[in-house]
């Protein structure tokens, strides 16, 4: 009887999870999604806990309280730190799957070796390999995103990297086969930790050759891994709720990763094994090109004369926490009756949708945030394109220069606007280390400095400027 009730509760929870993701469709229903998700998780926790086999209640209570103590502050991080937080939660998810898998194996050994069938062993090893790999991989990713000192920011490559990784993978595969065939052999309990160590090592090795610009794809892939480890746990425990929820998470990560790869015109394997960021050094050497730089005063005057302004944000806006200043600029321009739109490249920032969340935080209506494909046809009509800390996503080399590592990547056509202002922290090339032709175009003027202070200056100029029609109207009175 009890089993039937639990299964029914799990079924309800699975349906609620599907509804939750369905409601994530549009911002209008998205908050309902959160309530459905919370309801589903609560139902699952309560009915699992109520099962007669659960007898140590205090342990559960303490672990749940500890989860709240850490979880609540983690949900309050500044939105610029959301990519790190997401990577960190993938790490937690991976660790949970790995630990439960480890416990299940040793439990099976001591209490019921007959349960360790070949099928269950394969599921179990998949669970712990994905779990531990996601754990260290996501920690590395979080470290790179947080710019922790001892985590290398630039891609790390060494000779025979892919060969040695494959070799390690082969060893892990052999060990898996051995354990699957002889799960209870006397040497098996000693072999199991070796697989754990290999999985932990894989996580590190997979992430170190990957550069910051590829982080959106990598985070999405780690998301899929975390989901798949939950699926594997579902196979081990024969729990359909785990399988459903894990499959939803896995397919979400997969879709996001595909979108990110398409937005960079690269394949999965190229992102994972193609260590970006080495070829470019040659390019900078060929002759010094000249930038034209402009003062905020001059830029403000040009902006005032415009009818249609497109703002193109990138990671630089997130680093400088400039989104609120951007909002002030948006207000100043809107007051003058200027049309202002934001052009969002799918891989702008460090995770899918990163820019949208920052601009929404600054209270910019999401109806003014346009995707690359929506805005590009309008770019030739654009009077001023203002690039705020974006680089590769506006680099025309992606269209024209076959030797460029980003050749073929779809970009926002900032170079087709009548004039371009690019705000840039320094004269160094961007994260991917590639020179940007846009900056040398005769229609481009550079505004060097921290995005927040440059936009602050622009806002100040506009606020005090006499070009305001309303200010003139006032003085007539």
């Amino acid at each position, binding site marked *: 009887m009890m089993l039937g009730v639990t299964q029914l509760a799990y079924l309800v929870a699975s349906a609620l999870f599907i509804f939750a993701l369905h409601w*994530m469709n549009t911002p209008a229903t998205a908050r309902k999604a959160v309530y459905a998700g919370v309801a589903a*998780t609560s139902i699952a926790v309560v009915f699992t806990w109520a099962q007669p086999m659960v007898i*140590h209640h205090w342990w559960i209570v303490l672990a749940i309280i500890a989860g709240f103590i850490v979880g609540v502050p983690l949900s309050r991080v500044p939105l610029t730190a959301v990519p790190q937080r997401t990577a960190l939660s993938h790490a937690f998810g991976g660790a949970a799957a790995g630990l439960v898998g480890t416990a299940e194996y040793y439990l099976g050994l001591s209490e019921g070796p007959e349960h360790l069938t070949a099928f269950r062993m394969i599921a179990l090893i998949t669970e712990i390999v994905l779990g531990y790999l996601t754990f260290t991989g996501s920690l590395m990713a979080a470290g790179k995103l947080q710019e922790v000192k001892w985590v290398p920011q630039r891609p790390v490559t060494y000779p025979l990297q892919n060969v040695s990784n494959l070799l390690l993978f082969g060893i892990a595969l052999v060990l898996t086969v051995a354990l699957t065939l002889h799960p209870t052999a006397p040497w098996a309990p000693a072999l199991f930790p070796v697989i754990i160590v290999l999985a932990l090592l894989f996580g590190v090795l997979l992430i170190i050759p990957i550069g910051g610009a590829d982080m959106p794809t990598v985070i999405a892939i780690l998301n899929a891994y975390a989901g798949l480890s939950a699926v594997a746990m579902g196979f081990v425990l024969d729990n359909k709720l785990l399988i459903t929820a894990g499959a939803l998470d896995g397919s979400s990560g997969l879709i996001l990763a595909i979108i990110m790869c398409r937005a960079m015109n690269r394949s999965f394997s190229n992102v994972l094994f193609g260590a970006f960021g080495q070829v470019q050094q040659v390019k900078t050497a060929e002759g010094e090109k000249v930038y034209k730089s402009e003062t905020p005063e001059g830029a403000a005057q040009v902006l005032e004369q415009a009818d249609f302004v497109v703002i193109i944000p990138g990671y630089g806006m997130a680093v400088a926490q400039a989104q609120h200043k951007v909002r002030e600029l948006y207000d100043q321009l809107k007051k003058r009756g200027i049309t202002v739109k934001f052009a969002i490249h799918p891989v702008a920032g460090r995770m899918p949708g990163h820019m949208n969340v920052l601009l929404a935080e600054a209270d910019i209506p999401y109806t003014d945030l346009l995707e690359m494909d929506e805005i590009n046809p309008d770019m030739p009509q654009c009077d001023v394109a203002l690039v705020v800390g974006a680089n590769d996503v506006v680099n025309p080399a992606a269209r024209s220069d076959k030797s460029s590592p980003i050749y073929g990547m779809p970009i926002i056509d900032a170079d087709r606007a009548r004039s371009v202002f690019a705000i840039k922290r320094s004269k160094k090339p961007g994260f991917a280390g590639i020179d940007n032709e846009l900056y040398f175009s005769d229609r481009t003027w550079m505004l060097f400095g921290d995005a927040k202070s440059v936009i602050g200056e622009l806002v100040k100029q506009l606020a005090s400027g006499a070009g305001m029609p309303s200010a003139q109207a006032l003085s007539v009175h």
Partner: protein
Amino acid sequence: MMDFWPTLYVFVLATFIGLGVIRRVFRLLHTPLMSITNAISAISVVGSIIVTGGDYPLRIRILGAIALFASMTNIVSGFLITDRMLKMFKTGKPGEGSRS
């Protein structure tokens, strides 16, 4: 071994549902989508509760408790931050509680 096929069916069908539903999610909401799926995949909490609370040796339950703590952290922070982000998305039309 007999229970293997229905389980696999569930996995394949759930994956198709997931692909179908998530393909329709607005690009705008990809960051909140990622945090909510994070919280949803922390459903592995179900496995950790059984391992932690069952009548098992101490070292097994310690592993379970750490896993339970990790999943719980994801559930709490995942749903809270998703809600916090979603509250910020406004159309800018009057009557929606937006400041503009």
